[in-house]
C-alpha cells in the first residue's frame, strides 16, 4: 500500500483516460464505481487494475444511477471517490449529482463526452454536456466543472478536481471528450514529496459544536469539513430533503429556511468564482481579437491565433481550464480590452450564451464557430478571426 504505487513519478506516454485515473489515484481517490459506456471504458478498466494495488476498491455497478449512488455512499463513509461516464450515462447520474450538491458531498464525476442527443455516436468528441453539467439536475444549485485540454491536463485537472471537491464540498465534473480520452501524450508526474504538498486531504469536523452544512458567519460563508459517517462529524439525521445548517429538515408550510439553503449553496460557488476558476492567457496583452475556448478546441484556437499573428493580426487566446463556475471576472477583463471575441465550441453554442452575455454588456461583438462531432480545423477559427479583426 505504499504511496509510491499511488503516485507514479516519472514521464509516461498515456491516454487522457488513463491520465485521469492516475490523477485521481495520486490525489487520494480510493473508491470508484462505474458502468461500461464508450468512450470512457478505459477509465473503469484502469481503475480496476490500479485501485486494488493501492488498497482501494473498484466496483462495477448495475447502472450509472447505482454508480453515482455508491460514490455518494463511499464519500459519506470517508473515502475520496469518483465515477466516470459518457452520453446517456451522464444524464442518469444527474439525480444524485443534484443531491450531492445539496448535501454538500465531495465527489468527482468524469464525463468523457460523446455525440448526442440520445445514443448519438459513441466514439467521437462532442461538447454537448456543458450546460447539462451545470443545469442537469433538478433544483437550483451550482457546480464546479473543469475542462482538460491535453493528457497532462487530464492528470493535473483531475487532481485539481479532487482538491476543489474537498475544499468547496461539492461534486466536481471533469468534462473530457472521446478524442481527448484516447489521445496519447507525454504526462509528467512529479516526485511524491512535491506532489503531496498540493493535495487537500479529507478533513473531519470537530467532535463538539459541528455545524455540518455551509453557514454564514459575519457575512462570510464558512464551508465546514465534509461529513463522515462512523464519526461524530455527522448530523444525527442526514436528510435528503432541504435542511438548515444543522441538517434539520425544513418542513414548515412557509419554508423560509429553503431560501437560505439554496442561496448558500449557490453563493458558495458563485461568490467564490474568482477563487475557483482557472484560466490561461496567450498573446492577449495587445490583442484586438480574443479567442475564448476550453478543452481541445482551445488548442486549435491557439494554432489559429499563432497563424493569425503570422499574418499580422493581433489575436490572443483565453483558455478556460474551469467551465463552471463561469469565469465572469476573467472574461469581463478580456472583453474590456479587445474589439471582438471568437468562441469555437464543439456544440451548437453552449458556453457561448454566457460569453455573449458578458461581451454584450461590454459592447464587444462575440462570434461563434460551431463544429459537430469533430475537432475544428485551425483554418475554420482563423477565417473567423480574420473576418472580425
Amino acid at each position, binding site marked *: 500500500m505504499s504511496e509510491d504505487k499511488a503516485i507514479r513519478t516519472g514521464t509516461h506516454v498515456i491516454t487522457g483516460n488513463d491520465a485521469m485515473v492516475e490523477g485521481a489515484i495520486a490525489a487520494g481517490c480510493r473508491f470508484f464505481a462505474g458502468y461500461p459506456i464508450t468512450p470512457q471504458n478505459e477509465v473503469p478498466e484502469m481503475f480496476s487494475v490500479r485501485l486494488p494495488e493501492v488498497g482501494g476498491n473498484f466496483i462495477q455497478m448495475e447502472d450509472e444511477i447505482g454508480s453515482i449512488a455508491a460514490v455518494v455512499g463511499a464519500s459519506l463513509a470517508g473515502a475520496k471517490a469518483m465515477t466516470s461516464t459518457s452520453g446517456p450515462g451522464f444524464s442518469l447520474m444527474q439525480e444524485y449529482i443534484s443531491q450531492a450538491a445539496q448535501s454538500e458531498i465531495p465527489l468527482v464525476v468524469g464525463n468523457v463526452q460523446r455525440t448526442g442527443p440520445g445514443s448519438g455516436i459513441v466514439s467521437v468528441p462532442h461538447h454537448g454536456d456543458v450546460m447539462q453539467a451545470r443545469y442537469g439536475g433538478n433544483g437550483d444549485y451550482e457546480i464546479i466543472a473543469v475542462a482538460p485540454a491535453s493528457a497532462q491536463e487530464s492528470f493535473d485537472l483531475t487532481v485539481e478536481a479532487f482538491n476543489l471537491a474537498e475544499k468547496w464540498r461539492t461534486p466536481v465534473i471533469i468534462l473530457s471528450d472521446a478524442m481527448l480520452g484516447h489521445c496519447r*501524450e507525454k504526462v509528467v508526474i512529479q516526485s511524491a514529496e512535491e506532489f503531496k504538498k498540493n493535495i487537500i486531504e479529507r478533513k473531519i469536523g470537530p467532535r463538539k459544536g459541528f455545524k455540518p452544512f455551509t453557514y454564514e458567519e459575519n457575512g462570510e460563508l464558512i464551508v465546514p469539513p465534509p461529513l463522515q459517517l462512523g464519526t461524530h462529524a455527522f448530523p444525527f439525521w442526514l436528510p435528503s430533503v432541504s435542511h438548515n445548517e444543522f441538517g434539520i429538515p425544513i418542513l414548515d408550510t412557509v419554508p423560509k429556511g429553503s431560501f437560505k439553503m439554496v442561496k448558500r449553496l449557490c453563493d458558495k460557488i458563485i461568490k467564490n468564482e474568482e477563487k475557483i476558476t482557472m484560466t490561461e492567457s496567450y498573446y492577449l496583452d495587445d490583442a484586438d481579437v480574443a479567442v475564448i475556448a476550453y478543452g481541445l478546441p482551445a488548442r486549435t484556437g*491557439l494554432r489559429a491565433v499563432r497563424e493569425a499573428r503570422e499574418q499580422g493580426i493581433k489575436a490572443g487566446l483565453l483558455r478556460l481550464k474551469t467551465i463552471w463556475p463561469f469565469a465572469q471576472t476573467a472574461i469581463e477583463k478580456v472583453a474590456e480590452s479587445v474589439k471582438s471575441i471568437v468562441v469555437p465550441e464543439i456544440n451548437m453554442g453552449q458556453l457561448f450564451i454566457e460569453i455573449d452575455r458578458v461581451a454584450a454588456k461590454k459592447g464587444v461583438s462575440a462570434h461563434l464557430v460551431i463544429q459537430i462531432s469533430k475537432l475544428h480545423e485551425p483554418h475554420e477559427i482563423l477565417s473567423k478571426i480574420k473576418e472580425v479583426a
Partner: protein
Amino acid sequence: MRKEMRIAGYGGQGVVTLSMLITTAASLAAGKFSVQTDAYGPTARGGACYADVVIDDEEIDYPGIIKPDYLILFSKDAVSSYARSIKPDGIIFTDPTTVKKVPGKVKRYELPVQQIALDEFGKSVFANVIMFSAFLKITDLLPLDAARNIVRESVPKKAIDVNMKAFDRGIELADQAMSE
C-alpha cells in the same frame, strides 16, 4: 519542425499499435513532443480505423492533422479515403499484400512487411515492428537507437530477441527500398 502522419486500415491490422510505437519513441526516447489520436467505428474488430501522430520539437497546439507529411496505408479503402490528402512532397507507405495501386504522383515505398513477417518470423504481428523501423529509417524522423530501445521496453522479455531481429530486418528492408 512539425511533422504529421496518418496510419489507416482496418481494426486488427496494428494501426494503433504502430502509431503508439511512433508517438512513444518520439516522446520518451527522442525528447520531442508528440500526440497520437485515433478514430474508430463502433465495432471491436474489422471496422475502418486510422490513427494520427504529430511530432514536433515544441509543445503541440493543434493535436490533429492539417495535411499529412506521411501516410501509411494498409487497405484499399484507406488509399481511396486518404491518399489525396497528403502534402505534395510527402511520402506514402503501403504493403503490396493489401494495396496494389495508389493514385497521384507522390513518392511511395512499397514494403512487403506482411509477407516478411509471415515468411521469416512466422507471425503477421511482426509486420508492425518491421514497418516501424523501415518507416523511421526512410523518413529519418527519429534516432533509430532510441526507437529500438522503445521496442525493447514495450515487448515481453521472451519476445525481445525476435523483435530486435524484426526491427533490424525493417532497416534492411528500408535500405533495399531506398537503393532501388
